[in-house]
Each structure stands twice: as C-alpha cells, then as structure tokens.
C-alpha cells in the first residue's frame, strides 16, 4: 500500500470481498467463501438475499472484510443442514470455497431466471471456423502487461502467425495459427478467451472466417 501523508480510518471503508456462486442441488444456489478467514454475521434463514447485498463478515488476519453476494445470487436463505443448536460459535473458520450460505431462488424465480440466462456459450457465428487450444494451460492474448494483443477482431491471419501464448507449468509456448479445418488466410471474427484465462485442450481460442480463396490446408495447429 502506498504511504499517504494523511490518516484514513480503515474502519470507514472496510475492504469488500464477493462470495463465489455455485449451483447446488434442487436448483439452489451455494455461496462459497472467497478466501480463508473467520466468518460471522450471516443473514438468518428466511431472509432475502440479492446481488451486492452483505452476507457476513470475513476476518482475515484480524482485518474485517465485508462479504457481498455476487451478481446472479438471489433467493431466500435456507437453514444450514447441521444447524448448531444452543450456543453457536460467534465466528467459524472457513477455507476458500467453503459453504457460507445456501439460497433458494424459487421465491424470486422471475428475477433470477433473467440473471442466470447468460450469453449462449460457445455458439459459433455461422460460417466461422474455430482455432482450438492445442493443450491445457493459461492463455495469454498479449506478450506482457501493457503490450498490444497478438490478434484482434478483424485481423488477417496466416499459417505460422502467433495468436497467443499458453503457459503450462510455468513454461510459455506460442500458439501458432494453422490447421486442417481452418482457412489458410483467415480473418478473426471473435477472440473467445479473455487474457490470462485457463483453457482446456480443445477449448475455442479464436473464431475465424476465410479472408480470401482457400490456400494450402495442410498446416496443423501446434505449439512453437
């Protein structure tokens, strides 16, 4: 943290963490801990929780962090299955991804349905071909922070051209354009992955369309 020459009372602006959203059984939503710490102050069963609403406090090394419900979270708080009877501990230790709250969205169905309908996953533009990840790893669209992206929408690619980097076990490899199913010269229609996203082998990286008449189709996608 940069040292400032005035004192700001940190209690006025506690740091905020957003819980993680996961699907539970019966269409329920599970809100998971965003970090390791001592958790307290969860809303009581039956209360309504929506996006950006506080769902408790996570103390990390003594620092209070407000935990908010993530976008898409909506529903009534469901009582924990192993609800502690009698004297419940004021705070309980949680690890990353541990369950904080279960929400039942059926009470607010119309709202949550709108939230959950995301963009159609993986639907390719008609007529487009897809360059897929040659291996699992982390995909980088640029060679370093602040550097220009290797490719952008509208760019014309030729076989052997670098379209990104994949890091596997700290080793970086270039992803080169080319492949049997892909046009020899192609125009980028869509970059499917954000910078630094984890990709599995075969995940789409780019959608492309032919940039001119088909050329030699015998190049294969490969790592440099």
């Amino acid at each position, binding site marked *: 943290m940069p040292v400032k020459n005035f004192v700001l009372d940190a209690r006025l602006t506690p740091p905020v963490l957003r819980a993680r959203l996961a699907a539970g059984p019966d269409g329920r939503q599970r809100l998971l801990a965003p*970090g*390791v*710490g*001592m958790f307290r102050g969860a809303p009581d069963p039956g209360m309504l929780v929506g996006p950006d609403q506080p769902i408790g406090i996570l103390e*990390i*090394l003594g620092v209070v962090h407000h935990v908010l419900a993530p976008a898409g979270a909506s529903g009534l708080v469901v009582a924990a299955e192993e609800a502690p009877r009698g004297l419940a501990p004021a705070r309980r*230790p949680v*690890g*990353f*991804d*541990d369950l904080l709250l279960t929400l039942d969205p059926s009470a607010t169905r119309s709202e949550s349905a709108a939230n959950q309908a995301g963009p159609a996953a993986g639907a390719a533009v008609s007529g487009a071909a897809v360059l897929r990840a040659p*291996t*699992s*790893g*982390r995909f980088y669209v640029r*060679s*370093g922070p602040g550097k220009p992206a290797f490719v952008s929408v509208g760019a014309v690619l030729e076989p052997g051209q670098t379209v990104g980097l994949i890091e*596997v*076990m*700290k*080793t970086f*490899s270039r992803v080169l354009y080319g492949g049997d199913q892909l046009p020899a010269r192609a125009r980028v229609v869509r970059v499917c992955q954000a910078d630094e996203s*984890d990709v599995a082998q075969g995940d789409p990286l780019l959608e492309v369309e032919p940039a001119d008449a088909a050329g030699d189709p015998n190049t294969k996608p490969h*790592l440099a």
Partner: protein
Amino acid sequence: MSAKTRGTPAVPMFRRLMVANRGEVAVRIARACDLLGITPVFATSTADRDAGYLRGRETVCIGAARSPQSYLNMQAIVQAARQSECTALHPGWGFLSENPVFAALCEAHGVTFIGPPARAMHLMGKKTPAKSAMRAAGLALIPGSDGILDSAEQAREVADRVGYPVLLKAESGGGGRGMRIARGPDEVASAYADAQAEAIAAFGDGRLYLERLIEGGRHVEIQIMADRYGHVVHLGERDCTVQRNHQKLLEESPSPSLSPDEREKTLAAAVRAAASIGYVGAGTMEFLLDHGTLRFMEMNTRLQVEHSVSEVRSGRDLVVEQIRVAAGHPLSFRQEDVVLTGHAIECRINAEDPSANFKPAPGKIVRWHSPTGDGVRVDTHVDSGYEVPPHYDSLLCKVITAGATRDEAIARMLAALGELVCEGVPTTVPLHLQILRSSAFRTNHYDTRAIPGL
C-alpha cells in the same frame, strides 16, 4: 526425541505445523512432522485438495488453482495457519520459501516461520548483497555487476566491462527462472527484457543483475545447517552439473570433479561465511567450479529439492533438524559427528515429454509403481490415479540411490529407474537412462554446457 539434545533442558516442540506447499514437498515435510509427533495441517489449492497425498490429512483450502491465489497468497496462508491453530509454518522450497515479507508476516501473527531469520534471508535472498557478504568472508566470486542493474543500457555497460558472454539473472530468482544469456552487445537488450518478464511472472520481482557466464564449469553446492546458538556445520557438497535450461536433472555427492584440497578449503570457508552472517537453519551455497576454483554464485536460504542426497550420505534428517532448530533446540550433531559415506545420486523425474522438446505433460497417471530395494529412496506424492495438474511444476518424484562407490550408485539407479512404472503421462526417465549409461557421465567428462550422453 531428547536423546541427542546434548544435555540441554527440555525445549518445547510445536504441536501443529502448517505445511505451506504442495506435492512432493508437502509429503516430505509431513514425514518429518510424523516423526516428531507434530500434526501437519496442509494449506492446499482447489486443484490439489482431492489429491491422494492429502487423504486422511487435515487441510485448509486457501484459494484457487493458480499459485498467486493460493500457494503464493501470503495472507490466506497465514490466516489458515492461525485458524487451524498451527504455531509453526514450513514453507518447503519454491513458492514463498525465500520471501522475507512472508516470514515477517508469519512472525507478526505468532506463527514460527521455519527458515533463517528474516535478516539473513533478506541479505542472502537478494543476491547482490549476498555476494558482498561472501566476498568479505573469503569466498571467491564470479566477476559481474556491483548490484542491481537500472536498465538494459547499464547491463550493456557492465557486460562490455566484464566481457561476453554474460548471464542476466533475477535478483529474486531460483530454479533457473528469470535467467538469460547474452553472447554479444546486441543481445543484451532482448536478454534483459526476456529475463525481466520471466522474473516478474515467476517471482513478482523484475530486478536483474549480471555475471560473466563461465562456460564449461561444474555446478557444485554446499549444504549448511546452523542453529541459533552459533553452531554451523556442513553436510558435504553436491554436484548438480547435469541441468537442462538451468533446471537440475541429476545431482550427486560427492562431486567427482572436486580436488580434496579445494573441497576441504571451501567447506571450511562456507561454514565460516554462514557463521559470519548469523545464519540459522538449512541453507545451500552454490558455487561454480571454474578450473579447479569454487566461485560463489548465490546462497539459497532454504532447503533444496536435492537435500535428500546429503541426507542419504550423512544419515541425518534435515527437515527434522530444521523443525527442531526452529523450535529453539541446538543442533543434534556437531561437525565431527557428520560422517559422509559412499556415493549418492538423485534423479528428478518430471512429467515432461522428451520426444516433444520436454513439453510439460499434465494428465492422469493411470498406473504408478515406485522402485524399491537396497540403497533406493523415492520421494514422491504420486500414486496410481493421481492427476498431474497443469498449474504447477512438473516434478513427479525423486529417486535417490546410494552405493559404496559411484559405479554402484549408478548401477542401482539404472535398476531403480527400470523398475519405475508411470503410465498415463510421459516422463523424463528415458533421458536419465541415457545420461547414466553414457560414457561421458561414467567417466566424468562433462560440464554445464551440455547434458552428458545427449
């Protein structure tokens, strides 16, 4: 437990210890905890939490698979140690093991960091002050920059002065990451940029220094162990010349190239140097054997992957010793108690494809069998059904063999590697077999420039 404490009054021992590492490292630390009657609690990422080596163990999930969010997430790890009531933390090697800020954070929250004092870690972890301290203690050095480089232009000036080729190295580096060679003035700028980018990605610190590249030397290192009462001992040297892209592949002890005079002189000087900086715990001084002279390169203020070679030769458990020293015990042995016998060799088996330029090969191991037998030790976290995650380094196991002579150790290693079964992912076993069978390795005619047998 108290048999070797040299008559000192009882010193308390930790009850619960956080293992802030993963894989083979975590397994190694837990083994020492089990010997000492300490309960290990494993800090784990989401990628490792279901791994076989954590079955039946206490764990705290500290973050997502990527190491910056888990194994490099200092706050999460210290909080995990606090809430699982651990009073000590072992960082292992790699990740945060040489981070003085992390050590300080542990101490600030009442968790004993098992490693050297932050002061010694800071001095030796930042490699340029380390060189000055070691020069003062009487060790020979490699010519290079007098500290951190400000820019690629300055790197070029220093390189012009010391002579090409030069090696640009990360100030916070280790494990061969963040290093680049420049063979001429026109290569300095690109080597500087590449080394810096890799150093930032691997260590979060892009500062670089420069040394003349000594080609054709041998990589020799000395294992040091010290307690907080000023006792320092060495456990002999290791020869780690066989490397690929600055990643050690095979280590052995004793070094077959070192003359007895130079060995004796440098071991004694290394002990003096460690004492002079008030070092505590396990550490390694790395040297380059340059025409018979050991030139100091850097000190690693932690245990190293290949510590097991020295353990096999000396019969001492260095992780147990580390934990005891951190709890305030004096060393359980003196220099004259350290008897180094025979010859030991370690091969690091990685999940890499030798036929595809050693491309890391994550995936599921369908069948695994560890070699056994006389003089064979295997350190691993892998078992049948283990899934090698793509997020971390590719080490699967270390095979260590011992023998009365180098030839016997090599023969046992060949037998052990022949016995090792790993189905599902390619490994570097064929590479090791090629090295061990080569006449260059057998007759000790090789150096850092090339892998013997390739």
